[in-house]
C-alpha cells in the first residue's frame, strides 16, 4: 500500500491544480516528494525551514487574506511546540487552515522520544472548530482532505508512517463517521490508525477462541461518531479501546463520553501510559505497549472473563 506521506504529496498536486488558493508550507520535511506540487503550482510551495511557530503564524496570515494554507512537518514540532500559534492565530482569530503531520506517536522510534508525540490528537481536539483525522490508508486521506480542507475550521491530519493495509472505498469515508469492520456480540473493540491491523488480527484470533468481537474503526475522532459507539456498546456491554495515543486523553475519553447514560458496561484500555524511553523499532514499541494481536486478544479475554 502507498504510504500516507506519498499520498499527501499526490493529493496536494491534485487539489492544487483545481484550487488556486491552496498553498503548502513545510518545515524542512517532505521537501523532495512535494516537488511535483511545487512545479504544478508555481509560487504556492514554501519550505520555511525549522521554525514551526512562525510557519503556523504565516499560514494564519495567508488565510486572513483569502488563501487556503496547508502546513506540514513532524507532529511534536507543529502541534506541541506551535500550539499557542494554532490556538490563538487560527482559533481565537477564527481563521481556517490545514495541519498535516508525520511522526505521530513513536513513528520516529529510532530518533528517541524527543521525536515522539502522543498528545497531538488531544491538543487539537480541545480547540473549537477543529477537526481531527487519523487516516490509516491513502484513500482515507485523499477523500477526507478533499471534503474538509476548504471548509471553515482548523483541520488536523495525523499521517502514520505505516498504512494499516486495509482497503476502504471512498464512499465508506464520511467526515465524522466511524466504520464497523466486524459485527460481534461479546465485546466492542474501538481503534484508530495505525493499530487497526493489529486489532483486526486480534478480532480474528478471538473468533477462533469463541469470542465474538465487534470492531469499530474511527478515521476521524473529531467530530466523533458517538452513535456508532453507543449502538455497539449498548449491545455488547464491553469495551476495549486500542489507541496509539496518550492514555490520558484520547479515544477512550471520546468513547466514555459517548457512552454516558448507557446501562452497566465494562471497559479495558490499551494506550500509551507514559513516554516510551529507549530505542526500538515501531513494531517493538507497539508490542511493548500491548498493541500486538496477542496483546489485544489478551485484554479482550480479560474483559470478557471479568464479572
Amino acid at each position: 500500500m502507498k504510504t500516507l506521506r506519498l499520498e499527501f504529496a499526490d493529493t496536494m498536486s491534485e487539489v492544487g491544480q483545481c484550487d488556486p488558493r491552496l498553498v503548502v508550507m513545510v518545515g524542512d520535511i517532505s521537501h523532495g516528494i512535494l516537488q511535483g506540487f511545487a512545479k504544478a503550482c508555481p509560487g504556492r510551495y514554501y519550505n520555511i525551514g525549522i521554525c514551526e511557530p512562525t510557519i503556523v503564524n504565516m499560514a494564519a496570515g495567508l488565510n486572513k487574506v483569502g488563501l487556503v494554507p496547508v502546513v506540514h512537518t513532524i507532529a511534536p514540532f507543529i502541534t506541541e511546540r506551535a500550539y499557542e500559534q494554532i490556538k490563538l492565530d487560527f482559533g481565537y482569530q477564527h481563521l481556517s487552515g490545514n495541519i498535516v503531520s508525520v511522526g505521530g506517536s513513536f513513528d520516529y522510534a529510532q530518533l528517541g522520544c524527543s521525536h515522539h508525540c502522543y498528545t497531538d490528537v488531544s491538543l487539537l481536539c480541545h480547540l473549537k472548530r477543529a477537526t481531527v483525522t487519523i487516516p490509516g490508508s491513502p484513500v482515507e486521506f485523499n477523500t477526507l482532505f478533499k471534503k474538509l480542507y476548504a471548509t471553515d475550521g482548523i483541520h488536523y491530519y495525523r499521517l502514520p508512517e505505516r498504512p494499516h493495509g486495509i482497503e476502504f472505498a471512498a464512499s465508506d469515508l464520511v467526515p465524522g463517521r466511524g466504520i464497523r469492520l466486524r459485527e460481534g456480540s461479546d465485546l466492542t473493540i474501538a481503534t484508530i490508525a495505525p493499530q487497526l491491523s493489529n486489532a483486526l488480527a486480534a478480532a480474528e484470533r478471538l473468533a477462533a477462541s469463541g469470542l465474538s468481537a465487534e470492531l469499530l474503526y474511527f478515521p476521524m475522532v473529531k467530530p466523533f461518531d458517538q452513535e456508532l459507539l453507543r449502538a455497539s456498546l449498548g449491545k455488547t456491554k464491553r469495551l476495549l479501546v486500542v489507541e496509539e495515543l496518550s492514555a490520558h486523553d484520547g479515544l477512550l475519553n471520546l468513547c466514555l463520553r459517548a457512552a454516558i447514560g448507557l446501562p452497566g458496561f465494562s471497559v479495558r484500555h490499551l494506550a500509551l501510559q507514559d513516554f516510551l524511553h529507549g530505542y526500538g523499532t515501531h513494531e517493538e514499541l507497539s508490542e511493548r505497549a500491548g498493541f500486538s494481536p496477542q496483546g489485544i486478544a489478551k485484554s479482550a479475554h480479560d474483559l470478557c472473563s471479568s464479572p
Partner: protein
Amino acid sequence: MLSDRDLALKSLQYRLQTLELIHSAGAGHTGGGLSCLDILNVLYNRILRVSPETFGDAARDRYVQSKGHAVEALYVVLADRGFFPFSDLETVCHYESDYVGHPTRKIPGIEQNTGALGHGLPICVGMALAARMDRTGSRVFTLLGDGEIAEGSNWEAAMAGAHYKLSNLTAIVDCNTLQISGHTSQVMNSEPLDEKFRAFGWGVRVVDGHDLAALTEALSGPAEADKPTAVIARTIKGRGVSFMENVAKWHHGVPSDAELAQARTEIAAAIAALKGGAL
C-alpha cells in the same frame, strides 16, 4: 595536552569510528556529524574542564549539543574520553538500548537531552546564569546547527544571554551551509550570522571549523567583557569523505559496505599523509 599532530590524528580516527558506528547501527546523521567532529575534538581534548571523574562536580564545564541529531559523533568522542566503553556503542539502535538517535542523560557524559531543535541555547543561558549566581566558575558551551538557527527560541536566548552579560557562555554554530532539504541560504537564510550575533550584543569569532588551531584559539580566548561569545564555525557537511562533502542527502544517509570501504581508504590515506608529513 595533546600535540597538534595527535589532535589531528584524533579527528581522523573519530571520523572513521563515527562512520563505522552509523554503518553498523544502520541509522544516524552522517553529514552533520562529520561537520562538527573537529569542534567536538577541540572541545573535549583541549577546552572543556570535564572528565568522567569530575562529571559530578558543580564546577565542571558544561557542554550541551543542541544539534542533537549529530549524536553518533558525540558518542565516539565521549567513548574516547573514557565516559563509557566503546563496546557500549554496539547497542546503538538495538531494542531497549539507551543509545538512541539523540543525546539523553542516561548516557554518561551527556548533560542534557536534546533532539527538538532550538532548546540548547536557551537552556545554556539558564545554566550560565546559575553558574554565575553560584560562583562556581564553570563555563557553558553549546553547539547549534545553521539550519537550527531558524528556530526563534535561539534569538530570544541570544537577547537574554547578552542582557544578563553572560561572559561564561559560548555558542558555537556549525555553519555547514546545508540542512535536510538543501542549502540553508535557500531554505531560510540566516546570514550574516556574525553581524546578527554582534547586533544582539555578543562577542563574535568567525573561524574555519576544521582548523584545529583556530578552533582552539577561538574557544579558549578570553570573552569580551560582559558579553557571551558566539563562535561562527565555517564547516563542510560530510567533511573528510570526498563523496559525502557538501551533499545534502548525507544528512541522514547511511554508508553501504562499499561506501564505508571507500571512506576507510580515504581516511587511511589522510592518516598516512599526516604521519608521513610529521616525520
